[in-house]
């Protein structure tokens, strides 16, 4: 399939070709091009030289057709025709899709025109060097689509009309349309129809037109080197925007100001360009004046960046500071270029390292330097000065500087970033490595505050701060310990940091911090500090516990019993991180068991009654996660936790709390004893009220709880009486998969009540359920199919209703091709209901339900077996289906179902066998598979339906045997 004849490679199939192209990785495009160049006529290569296409026309298909007509080698040629047609289709597709893209680029858009006009307007302003006198729109009104032409001209693709007065010629009346730019007959007012007519050639854009119409313009624009004229329009737009931003946004500002802003702008530009990779930036006019030729080369130079960053930046800042005093105009060009260059480079380097090393982040925000596009605040300089003292001071000066730095509003992003930008973070983190306890404490107090900022967190992690802080956890000084733990808690908000903490043994140390006496009445000062240490330890563990491996590490370090002990604490500020950690970890089974075994449910329930919403939320959330387990659900009830949960439902404004509470109620409702309790507390009434105007995470849980509650008949009536059916049915139109699973379940449960069914029917709920069978998610499919069963059972004229769904029966029969057991079982159940209606049974038979069901019979899944047997029993009632099932080999596997341990399978199977036994051949198969003995056992069952079906089946077999004997022996 592959021939290597250097320097070229030949392949014999497309799959090989695609592999080779993949191997080429970044040279893919080149490779493909080379391949296409070498194979001018692939069709000829594949089908033989007789089909080679002549340049300019493609008649190979025609020739092929002729050959087919002639009839020799008919088969082979037919395949060739198909292949060539396919290839051509692909070709056309490729062409049309690339054409679409190309045409988008070529055609002018209102935005592009607008930018051009703004650019040109900016050229009108200056006196001596001006290239145009004026640029004006004929209409000030701009439509929402960006056009300024009257709507009846917009249909011709015209965007706007301009009157441009060049310096040397008559005013030009110009039409800008999507096809290009051209002169018109001079539109001044609407109504003069002939004025719209084109009077010149069509130009690509405004600049090109002006260059050809106005020699002065052409000359001057070249002289000034605006760096715009040679670009394709799309790129130009981008650069024009930038100039605009500066000119429109700050028209009154002085030159000095613009210069100051340049490096901000450089950053902004850089950030914008980041995803695009190494796109070359076009310097604008203003930047050229500053001597800023290409400021971003440094961004690539990653190696030198790290150590150089702080010095360079500090240096640059100092220069800028000086500049504030010195008059700007006296600044030598070289220095100013140097100055603006450096911060740009630094920002770039930072951005670069962030984007390259962080592909894995969860909750992180992108770099946001661009926000502070204004002057650097005074804090910036003060902080810079303090950092200088930190660097060059002894312990005393350092402590003073640290204390003074704490007086800044460290919660403010300006200050946070200022500390980072002047190289303060490095110094602060270096201080942690010294022996001076006071310096360490002072440094941590600052780091603790500024690490609330996500960019600072990353920077701390990048500078190796976490490792040092983990080491500090071993310190005997308690102040140091708790400060370090609290800072870790802030920094470990992203995955890489959490991993670092774990890898450096931080989890074990943090768990050790938890060891304290939490709840003795009178604490000594030392004990109080121990409690604070433990609290911060819990905070850090809470942050860390968002990573699965850290959960494991906490457990292995013996954290669970310590957390259980702290859970007895009377202090909310201790309980919040502890319960927070627990609920985070409760996603792991080991923790759920531990929470149950260590008796933490009681404490969690107790804290549901506190008056702190956050704590309540975490408790409810922990119960939510743990209550999948039956014993836990029972414990919640026994600890009287259900009532507080219902009470919390009244906190409908706090959506997080509401989501956690409703989640806990949902999971607790899986136990019927709990449902009974909720009934007493009138929980369902409240839940129905929460069906509207809630976020999805609340709705999922509310509906889930209603679905569980509706398993009890009394509750089904309650839901109806509270008007819950309608909102439930309305939710069937949603898109959230988890919600749909729950809604279908709830609607299905409600549909078991006749009165409810009437309402569902009226709201067309069955149709909605049915359409959910088309949902790609198998859970939704299954849940919808389950819900359909009671609907068909309880709806009036259900047969007619089902038939009214166009394509509905075919849809559900086709779901039998699913690979998901739950879907199959649910669809079988639904088919069993559908088949009760003879006409529908005929339709699904036509759709091939019999062989499909027969194909499934070899399953060992008892749930599927049961519903499959039901469906088969029902489907036997039509035409020759019985015979067909026998022929499809469904009988023998069914006999084996009788050996299943599940008695519900027996009943359905016996019924199916009874139906099948009405065909003599099936009787023979059954008998051969030893059905009689099994059925005889079933006949002694207490289940009457089973008894009867088993007996009926045996009777049929017996009758056949008798008839046989009779025939034989007369």
């Amino acid at each position, binding site marked *: 399939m592959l021939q290597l004849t250097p320097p070229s490679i030949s392949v014999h199939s497309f799959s090989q070709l695609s592999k080779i192209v993949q191997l080429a990785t970044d040279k893919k495009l080149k490779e493909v091009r080379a391949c296409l160049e070498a194979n001018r006529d692939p069709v000829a290569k594949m089908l033989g030289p007789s089909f080679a296409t002549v340049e300019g026309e493609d008649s190979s298909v025609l020739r092929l057709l002729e050959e087919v007509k002639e009839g020799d080698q008919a088969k082979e040629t037919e395949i060739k025709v198909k292949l060539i047609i396919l290839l051509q289709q692909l070709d056309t597709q490729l062409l049309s899709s690339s054409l679409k893209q190309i045409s988008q680029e070529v055609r002018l858009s209102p935005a592009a025109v607008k930018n051009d006009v703004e650019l040109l307007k900016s050229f009108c302003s200056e006196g001596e060097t001006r290239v145009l006198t004026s640029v004006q729109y004929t209409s000030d009104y701009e439509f929402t689509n960006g056009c300024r032409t009257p709507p009846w001209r917009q249909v011709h693709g015209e965007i706007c009309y301009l009157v441009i007065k060049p310096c040397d010629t008559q005013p030009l009346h110009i039409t800008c349309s999507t096809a290009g730019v051209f002169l018109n007959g001079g539109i001044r007012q609407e109504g003069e129809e002939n004025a719209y007519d084109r009077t010149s050639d069509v130009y690509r854009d405004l600049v090109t037109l002006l260059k050809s119409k106005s020699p002065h313009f052409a000359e001057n624009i070249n002289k000034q080197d605006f760096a715009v004229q040679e670009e394709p329009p799309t790129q130009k737009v981008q650069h024009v925007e930038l100039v605009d931003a500066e000119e429109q946004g700050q028209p009154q500002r002085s030159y000095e100001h613009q210069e100051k802003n340049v490096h901000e702008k450089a950053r902004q530009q850089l950030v914008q360009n980041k995803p695009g990779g190494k796109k070359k930036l076009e310097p604008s006019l203003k930047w050229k004046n500053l001597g800023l030729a290409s400021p971003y080369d440094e961004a690539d130079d990653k190696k030198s960046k790290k150590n150089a960053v702080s010095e360079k930046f500090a240096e640059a800042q100092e220069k800028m500071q000086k500049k504030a005093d010195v008059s700007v105009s006296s600044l030598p060009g070289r220095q100013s270029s140097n100055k603006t260059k450096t911060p740009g480079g630094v920002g770039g380097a930072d951005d670069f390292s962030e984007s390259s090393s962080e592909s894995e982040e969860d909750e992180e925000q992108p770099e946001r330097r661009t926000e502070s596009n204004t002057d650097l605040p005074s804090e910036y300089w003060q902080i810079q*000065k*303090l950092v*200088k*003292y930190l660097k*060059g*001071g*002894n*312990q*005393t*000066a350092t*402590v*003073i*500087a*640290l*204390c*003074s730095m*704490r*007086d800044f509003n460290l919660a403010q992003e300006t200050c946070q970033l200022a500390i980072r930008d002047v190289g303060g973070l490095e110094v602060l983190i270096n201080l942690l490595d010294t022996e001076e*306890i*006071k310096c360490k*404490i*002072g440094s941590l107090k600052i780091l603790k505050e500024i690490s609330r900022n996500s960019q600072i967190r990353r920077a701390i992690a990048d500078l190796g701060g976490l490792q040092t802080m983990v080491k500090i956890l071993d310190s*005997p*000084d308690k102040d140091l310990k708790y400060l370090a733990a609290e800072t870790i808690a802030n920094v470990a908000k992203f995955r890489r940091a959490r991993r670092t903490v774990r890898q450096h043994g931080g989890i074990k140390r943090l768990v050790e911090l938890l060891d304290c006496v939490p709840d003795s009445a009178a604490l000594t000062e030392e004990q109080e500090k121990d409690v604070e240490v433990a609290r911060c330890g819990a905070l850090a563990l809470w942050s860390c516990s968002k990573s699965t491996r850290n959960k494991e590490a906490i457990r292995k370090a013996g954290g669970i019993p310590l957390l259980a002990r702290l859970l007895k604490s009377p202090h909310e500020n201790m309980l919040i991180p502890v319960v927070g950690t627990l609920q985070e970890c409760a996603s792991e089974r080991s923790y759920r068991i531990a929470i149950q075994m260590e008796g933490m449910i009681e404490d969690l329930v107790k804290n549901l009654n506190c008056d702190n919403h956050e704590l309540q939320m975490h408790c409810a959330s922990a119960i939510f996660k743990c209550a999948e387990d039956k014993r836990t659900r029972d414990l919640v009830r026994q600890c009287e936790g259900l009532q507080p949960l219902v009470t919390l439902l009244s906190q409908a404004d706090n959506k997080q709390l509401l989501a956690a509470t409703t989640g806990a109620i949902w999971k607790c409702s899986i136990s019927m004893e709990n449902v009974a309790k909720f009934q007493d507390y009138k929980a369902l009434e409240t839940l129905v009220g929460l069906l509207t105007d809630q976020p999805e995470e609340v709705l999922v849980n509310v509906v889930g709880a209603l679905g569980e509650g509706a398993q009890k008949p009394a509750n089904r009536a309650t839901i109806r009486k509270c008007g819950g059916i309608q909102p439930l049915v309305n939710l069937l139109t949603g898109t959230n998969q988890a919600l749909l699973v729950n809604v279908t379940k709830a609607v299905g449960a409600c549909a078991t009540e006749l009165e409810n069914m009437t309402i569902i029917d009226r709201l067309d709920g069955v149709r909605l359920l049915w359409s959910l069978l088309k949902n790609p998610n198998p859970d939704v499919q299954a849940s919808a199919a389950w819900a359909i069963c009671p609907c068909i059972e309880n709806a009036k004229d259900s047969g007619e209703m089902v038939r009214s769904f166009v394509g509905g029966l075919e849809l559900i029969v086709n779901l039998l091709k699913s690979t998901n057991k739950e879907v199959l079982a649910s669809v079988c159940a639904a088919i069993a209901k559908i088949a009760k209606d003879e006409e529908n049974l005929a339709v699904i038979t036509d759709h091939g339900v019999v062989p499909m069901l027969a194909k499934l019979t070899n399953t060992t899944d008892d749930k599927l077996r049961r519903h499959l047997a039901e469906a088969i029993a029902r489907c036997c009632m039509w035409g020759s289906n019985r015979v067909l099932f026998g022929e499809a080999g469904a009988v023998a596997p069914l006999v084996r179902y009788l050996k299943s341990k599940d008695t519900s399978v027996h009943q359905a199977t016996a019924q199916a066998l009874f139906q099948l036994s009405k065909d003599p051949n099936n009787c023979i198969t059954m008998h051969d598979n030893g059905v009689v003995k099994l059925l005889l056992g079933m006949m002694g069952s207490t289940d009457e339906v089973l008894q009867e079906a088993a007996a009926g089946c045996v009777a049929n077999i017996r009758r056949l045997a008798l008839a046989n004997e009779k025939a034989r022996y007369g």
Partner: protein
Amino acid sequence: MAEMSAMNRKLIQNLAETLSKQVKHFNKTEAECLIRLFNGLLGDQSDRRVGNGLDRGKFRNILHNTFGMTDDMIMDRVFRAFDKDNDSYVSVKEWIEGLSIFLRGTLDEKIKYCFDVYDLNGDGYISREEMFHMLKNSLIRQPTEEDPDEGIKDLVEITLKKMDHDHDSRLSYADFEKAVRDENLLLEAFGTCLPDAKSILEFEQHAFQDTLEH
């Protein structure tokens, strides 16, 4: 000699008993150990004025070698703070009283002690000039700077801004106390005049255990 030493021991015990009642943080045994240590230190000293106690040089040696202090001026001030009667010698009583705060003082005691150390002229205020004097060596001087004292001056201003609550350009005891209570780190704002935890531990081990064993 034996008689002498027996008498001496008796004396020491009596003295220790008295002093441990006067001083807050030492029990009798500890006081006794410290007296022995004091006597031991005196023994090395030139014999002329043994009765008066430790002189400045001797005391500064202890501060430097045992407690790792380096700043001459601060060490002088610590000596002053110990030497309550201003006779240029630290007597045994002053020794024990001083160490009580030095090693085990409460925050209140330490605030008072530090303020005394920093109030160079003893007028009850830490003035700008005094601050400048104490901080003048706290920054590395950059040879490039035009005014090498600029940084120090600035540091003084920062400190005043932070601690001078009544805005009279000097720190009264009340200013100092409030600032330190708000931020404990400012206790030794103008130079290290208290030992760190590690040297305290070492000193106490040396004084209370080793002395007992001998």
